[in-house]
């Protein structure tokens, strides 16, 4: 249990040091996924919130915090709900999380700019989200094997 905590702390720090836009998001979500499956919703929530706050303090501003928190919370809510059901593997959970993340973030943009047509951004965000969701779950599976 303690080892798992240290591991997820490490993974929070690592993504922050690799700020390549698309990839950074994917790496950070691995920590969320691992925390969710191995530790539970509340630890995953604290990993998510601390990651978002730290990242916004170091790199971005309030706007970035608003976007990342909304996307992250939406993703976590969806993933927490789905992971209990045996019909879904971490792959499906991760993909659903990625989709929820993108929908959440675009919704923030739509509300801020009062422009529903910004939802058109989902046309390319959703397919990319499926790919990153698959990738995140794949890395999660790898980590599972390494730990055992």
């Amino acid at each position, binding site marked *: 249990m303690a080892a798992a905590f240290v591991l997820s702390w490490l993974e929070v720090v690592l993504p922050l040091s690799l700020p390549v836009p698309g990839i950074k998001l994917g790496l950070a979500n691995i920590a969320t996924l691992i925390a969710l499956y191995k530790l539970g919703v509340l630890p995953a929530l604290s990993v998510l919130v601390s990651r978002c706050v730290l990242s916004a303090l170091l790199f971005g501003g309030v706007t970035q915090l608003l976007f990342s928190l909304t996307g992250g919370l939406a993703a976590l809510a969806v993933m927490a709900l*789905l992971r209990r*059901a*045996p*019909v*879904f*593997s971490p*792959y*499906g959970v991760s*993909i*659903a999380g990625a*989709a929820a993340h993108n929908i959440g973030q675009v919704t923030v943009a739509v509300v801020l*700019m*009062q*422009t529903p*047509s*910004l*939802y*058109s951004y*989902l*046309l390319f965000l*959703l*397919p990319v*989200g*499926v790919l990153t969701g698959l990738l995140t779950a794949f890395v999660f599976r790898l980590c599972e094997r390494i730990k055992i």
Partner: protein
Amino acid sequence: MKKGDFLIILLIAVLEAALMAVFLRGPSPGGVAVIELDNAPVHSVPLDGGDRDYEIQGAHGQVVVSLRDGRVSFSESSCPDQTCVRTGRLSRAGQTAACVPNRVLIRIDGAPDGGPDVVLR
């Protein structure tokens, strides 16, 4: 991967198809370009009007919105990144372009007689 995973992917694909139906329609005859400053409309321009330029004082500086051959675009802008200018020409209902530093938005609406935005069959 399990059965439920494919269901999730299918749902996302359905959502994607719905988005395409809404946003990727063909050229809209009688479309109107609405130019907004600070979320308030300042110009309403029928796309089939003659070629015209609109100079708008935004929060950052000046932008020029141009109508050419039924297509509207940001031809000039005072903003540093020029994302708006690089967005290109709009001609179809639902398309938007924005200059965020200047708080200027161009939006193409359907026919001014109030044609439907979405048709469900």
